[in-house]
């Protein structure tokens, strides 16, 4: 078995082990035997002799949360992988490009207008798309600057602007009902997810993912200078637009159910690229496996290390910030 295949196998094994662990640990510990027993009885339709509490904890409390961590982690990692490849910029990710903040603004507007999860998704997608469009448009017009930096700085600045629009909505929101909902949601959390949220978000993420999987070979050509990719027969503008829309759809689907959980989309693509190289077809599946495993590990830690829950965004920032600075210090090196 070569090193690349080994990366997939290890990542998959880690994901399975973490999933089992996430079901088992918590305020109400469940043994692995009980989980297997319960799942077996659910699959075969037979009865089980486990306490009712076990079924409630596994299927209704931890089930949606574990699935949400997997979905959000994989979606953010896939979006980050796509953004880094197509902007030829290893320092970008959904949060740095302002996509997450744009999607959050859309979602907050949805909450403010008392919309259901479906329209919150749509608003989040529109907000994310507007943000990335604006950032890319401004970034590509700042000629004479280091293009790597121009895109990152524009993303940060537009993110701040959108953040103040969120602040305005919070100020205007009903302080007893909407404001707590908006605030808790913005902290980034997987705690209060319902199966309905998941069922609404998953199709959005899937619609974003399928074109990326189908175009996985062509995606590589976006890493070349535009002239070269065009001379090789690619309609660069059309492909890039399509991929931006897909990656933004995936980001929005994650943000709409979990709030802003930063850094996953930056860290994970790099880790995956170190393991299997830059080819998008190999990179994307591994990034999704690692992203899902990473966020599940973070979320499980967040709900077990202290008596109160720590927002997962806090933990990812603790890991992500030094990593970004390290990358930045190395940014004269090839990727």
């Amino acid at each position, binding site marked *: 078995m070569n090193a690349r295949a080994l990366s997939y196998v290890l990542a998959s094994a880690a994901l399975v082990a973490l999933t089992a662990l996430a079901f088992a640990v918590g305020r109400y510990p469940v043994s692995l035997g009980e989980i297997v027993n319960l799942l077996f009885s659910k699959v075969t339709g037979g009865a089980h002799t486990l306490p009712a509490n076990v079924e409630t904890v596994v299927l209704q409390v931890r089930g949606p949360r574990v699935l949400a961590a997997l979905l959000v982690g994989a979606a953010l990692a896939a979006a980050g992988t796509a953004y880094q490849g197509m902007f030829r910029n290893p320092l970008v990710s959904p949060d740095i490009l302002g996509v997450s903040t744009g999607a959050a603004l859309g979602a907050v507007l949805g909450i403010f207008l008392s919309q259901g999860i479906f329209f919150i998704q749509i608003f989040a997608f529109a907000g994310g798309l507007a943000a990335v469009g604006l950032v890319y448009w401004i970034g590509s017009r700042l000629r004479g600057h280091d293009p790597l930096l121009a895109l990152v700085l524009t993303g940060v600045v537009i993110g701040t602007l959108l953040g103040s629009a969120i602040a305005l909505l919070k100020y205007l929101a009903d302080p007893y009902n909407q404001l707590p909902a908006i605030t808790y949601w913005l902290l980034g959390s997987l705690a209060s997810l319902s199966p309905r949220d998941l069922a609404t978000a998953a199709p959005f993420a899937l619609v974003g993912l399928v074109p990326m999987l189908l175009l996985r070979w062509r995606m590589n050509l976006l890493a070349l200078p535009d002239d070269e990719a065009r001379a090789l027969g690619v309609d660069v503008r059309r492909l890039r637009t399509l991929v931006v829309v897909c990656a933004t759809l995936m980001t929005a689907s994650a943000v709409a159910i979990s709030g802003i959980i930063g850094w996953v989309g930056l860290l994970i693509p790099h880790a995956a690229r170190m393991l299997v190289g*830059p080819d998008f077809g190999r990179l994307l599946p591994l990034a999704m496996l690692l992203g899902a495993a990473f966020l599940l590990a973070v979320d499980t830690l967040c709900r077990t290390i202290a008596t109160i829950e720590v927002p997962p965004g806090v933990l990812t920032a603790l890991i992500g910030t030094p990593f970004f600075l390290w990358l930045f210090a190395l940014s004269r090196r090839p990727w």
Partner: protein
Amino acid sequence: MLTVESLAFGFPGRTIGRDVSFSLGAGEVMCVLGPNGGGKTTLFRTVLGLLPPHGGGISLEGKPLDSLSRREIARRVGYVPQGHAAYFAYTVREFVLMGRTAHLGVFASPAKTDLAVANRVLESLGIAQLAGKPVTEISGGERQLALVARALAQEPKLLVLDEPTASLDFGNQVRVLERISALAASGISILFSSHDPDHAFLCARRVLLLAEGRVLEAGAPREVIRPDTLERMYRVSVQVVPLPGGAHTCLPAIRP
């Protein structure tokens, strides 16, 4: 193969050259000489359809260039740009395989036949040993050859090379010129630019002198490369010296 008729070219909103006409037959080599900023790269980008013409016409195999899709152009014309900024550590083999894009379906990945083409091209350029190395870790000369390999993987009928010898050492320059001659002998038409008139003497059948966006003269190297034309283009004195055996070389005079 390639016909250019009274072409005007430039960037959107700024025309930098006009009245350029030439044609290139199968297996012919044409060298474009001209000072920096004379419009060589812009002319090439226009011929490749990367910039829209500002007037006149370009046709490939008798078909107007603007009637062909990017994919159809890429199946006919290979492009070797002036240097390449590598952002990601693709291996040389992966990089060369990107040349197969125009032969693949939109959702397809390269198949065994594409890999065979890539390997054959790498072999023919003598860089098979680089196949597994990241493009970010090879030398400038090796990267130039990798770019040529990627263009050849397109299986083009016309190869456009923008200053393929720039930034190469003396030996690599000669090796690139040898490749150009060999490719032309195999029937591929070649359009390349250079800063060294001797390169035109060495391997081009025809020369186009391009200064300030206009054709100064065009024709066989020995008729066109003269002390007076070189002096007009580059504003230095040059002797064109015949060598034993019928070859010629350019020798600039240094005035202290």
